[in-house]
């Protein structure tokens, strides 16, 4: 481990900070336009009420609830990837954790907004706290998502502290105001042994905590459906199924984020094909697990074919929702396993292709849970219909664009890889003590 290599990854990790080339502004501009379109649609909905959506008396949950489950699911995968890699002390994690944890926060912020977008009277949201009824799954949701949001913010922040100190010391000249912010946020980090120990303990505790927290969030989301009297939702496997779906789509999203930023910020030397192969293995294991859970669910329900479930299953397998279902099952679940799993060339491209398919598939699967379950008959003669309007589509597109936008902006101000963790893995002593030259700004 020589100073040159360290210089290289420090340079790469800090490189995006404060830079705004043409591509950066193009990306920010394009994404902002999409977000603005979504905001416009939401204001329009606020003015006119939920009438402007495709929601109706029979199918009263649609795109917004699907998106809530979908984006929180993605967030969950990011947090889990970060936590598991830390807990198993996987050495290859160092350049990835920051990206995974930032993805988790960005996706969560978007996902958590959707239940509010879905409200008929968002101005009264405070009632959930003022008049909270502990027996309501919505209250469970607010508590679980709130706790998880705080935890994942801390989970992103803690490992960032030493990096902020590094940035503070290195970027003194390049970023004046920013330097002060770094100084404040780094909480006087000097890399002393006591500080190192405290940080390691904090991150360790959070890595352990974040897993049950994330599981609770997705279980509660599942129970939002499973505790109702709707036959197609009233299933014991729903919570674990939702949790697995979340990690699966989340790992796929992490793969995409890593691939994209690796290219844009030139991190190829640190994030290599090996990383993508490992992440692909994770994706395959989760995908197979999901397939198993899903077969278990559909087989037990379909075999008995109770009066209230049979028509819903029929609509999914052979009826009006069959195209979505088979597109998901074949294209979004089975095919990606082969694409990512078969040995051969282009591991990065294949991991990305598989991830895109998995993410699209998991969105479709949430659609197949929410909409047919809603439209299906409560009284045997009563099918509902749902087709989203431009408002729901615009809000969905805007929300999806908000995630890369937040990530790009975030990494313009904060190091894209964890220098501190790279140091640790490469066996470099904490920066200020090894290289006093860097510590110029201190004291």
């Amino acid at each position, binding site marked *: 481990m020589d100073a040159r290599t360290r210089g290289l990854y420090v340079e790469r990790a800090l490189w995006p900070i404060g830079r705004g080339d043409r591509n950066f502004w193009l990306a920010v501009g394009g994404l902002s336009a999409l977000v603005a379109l979504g905001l416009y649609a939401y204001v329009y909905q606020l003015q006119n009420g939920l009438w402007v959506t495709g929601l*109706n*008396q029979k199918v009263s949950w649609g795109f917004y609830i699907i998106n809530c489950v979908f984006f929180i699911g993605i967030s969950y995968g990011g947090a889990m990837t970060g936590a598991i890699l830390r807990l198993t002390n996987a050495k290859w994690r160092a350049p990835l954790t920051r990206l995974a944890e930032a993805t988790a926060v960005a996706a969560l912020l978007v996902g958590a907004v959707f*239940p509010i977008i879905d409200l008929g009277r968002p101005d009264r949201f405070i009632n959930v706290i003022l008049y909270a009824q502990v027996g309501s799954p919505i209250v469970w949701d607010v508590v679980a998502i709130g706790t998880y949001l705080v935890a994942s913010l801390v989970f992103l922040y803690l490992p960032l502290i030493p990096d902020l100190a590094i940035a503070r010391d290195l970027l003194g000249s390049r970023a004046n105001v920013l330097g002060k912010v770094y100084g404040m946020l780094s909480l006087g980090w000097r890399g002393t042994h006591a500080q190192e120990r405290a940080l390691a303990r904090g991150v360790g505790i959070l890595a352990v905590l974040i897993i049950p927290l994330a599981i609770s969030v997705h279980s509660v989301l599942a129970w939002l459906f499973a505790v109702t009297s709707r036959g197609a939702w009233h299933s014991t496997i729903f919570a674990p199924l939702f949790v697995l779906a979340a990690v699966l789509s989340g790992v796929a999203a992490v793969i995409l984020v890593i691939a994209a930023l690796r290219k844009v910020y030139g991190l190829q030397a640190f994030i290599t094909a090996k990383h993508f192969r490992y992440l692909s293995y994770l994706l395959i294991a989760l995908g197979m697990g999901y397939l198993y859970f899903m077969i278990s669910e559909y087989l037990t329900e379909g075999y008995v074919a109770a009066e209230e479930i049979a028509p819903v299953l029929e609509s999914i397998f052979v009826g009006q929702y069959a195209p979505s279902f088979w597109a998901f099952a074949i294209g979004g679940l089975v095919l990606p396993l082969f694409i990512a799993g078969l040995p051969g060339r282009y591991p990065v491209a294949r991991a990305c292709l598989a991830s895109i398919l998995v993410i699209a598939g998991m969105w479709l699967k949430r659609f197949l849970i929410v909409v047919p379950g809603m439209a299906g008959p409560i009284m045997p003669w009563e099918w509902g219909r749902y087709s989203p309007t431009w408002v729901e589509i615009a809000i969905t597109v805007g929300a999806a664009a908000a995630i890369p936008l937040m990530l790009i902006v975030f990494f313009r101000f904060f190091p894209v890889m964890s220098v501190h963790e790279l140091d640790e893995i490469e066996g470099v002593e904490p920066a200020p003590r090894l290289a006093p030259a860097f510590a110029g700004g201190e004291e």
Partner: protein
Amino acid sequence: MPIAFPAAEGHVRAAPGKARQWAMVIDLRKCDGCKECTLACQTEHALPKSFEWIKVFEVKDSQGGKYFMPRPCFQCENAPCLRVCPTGATFRDEEGVVLVDQVDKCIGCRMCMEHPVPQIKGTVGKCMFCVHRTDDGKLPACVEACAMEALYIGDLVEDVATNGNETVRLSTFLKENDAFRYKEDLGTGPRVYYIAGHGQLLDN
């Protein structure tokens, strides 16, 4: 499309000790599917056409015949929609009617609508057994409107029911006519009873 929902507004609660327990009986033998009940309800509550707080279904029975089944809110004693409400906007009054506080509390999350409680406008509205009318000693709008006299409003405490023309002893009436409650097996305790008579399956 602003619409007024007078549902829970202005409902005066019964004095303690005097509470009635409202129930409804629907005689499927008489209903001819004219939907006058739906119309009357929509007029009474200023609802748009797509909002059917009492919805009349045309049902094919297993013998190939058909009959009509009006469905108001069942005002379940163990109402699942009430349990899932995050703000307690959905509640049961002393007279056993499940009401939604649209004025202050309902946030429009529609969690209750996963259970069969229909209708939106920012907040959720539903059949409320016309408590504003029964408070004044009047019949619910749908009961009054039904020319076939198929709908009865009744009181479980006093054990009577009326369709506006004839008054019956509720318990005897239900017993003698083999009344059933829709999806009784869900254990929600509906307060709406049906009298069959067209060969429909009694347990359905």
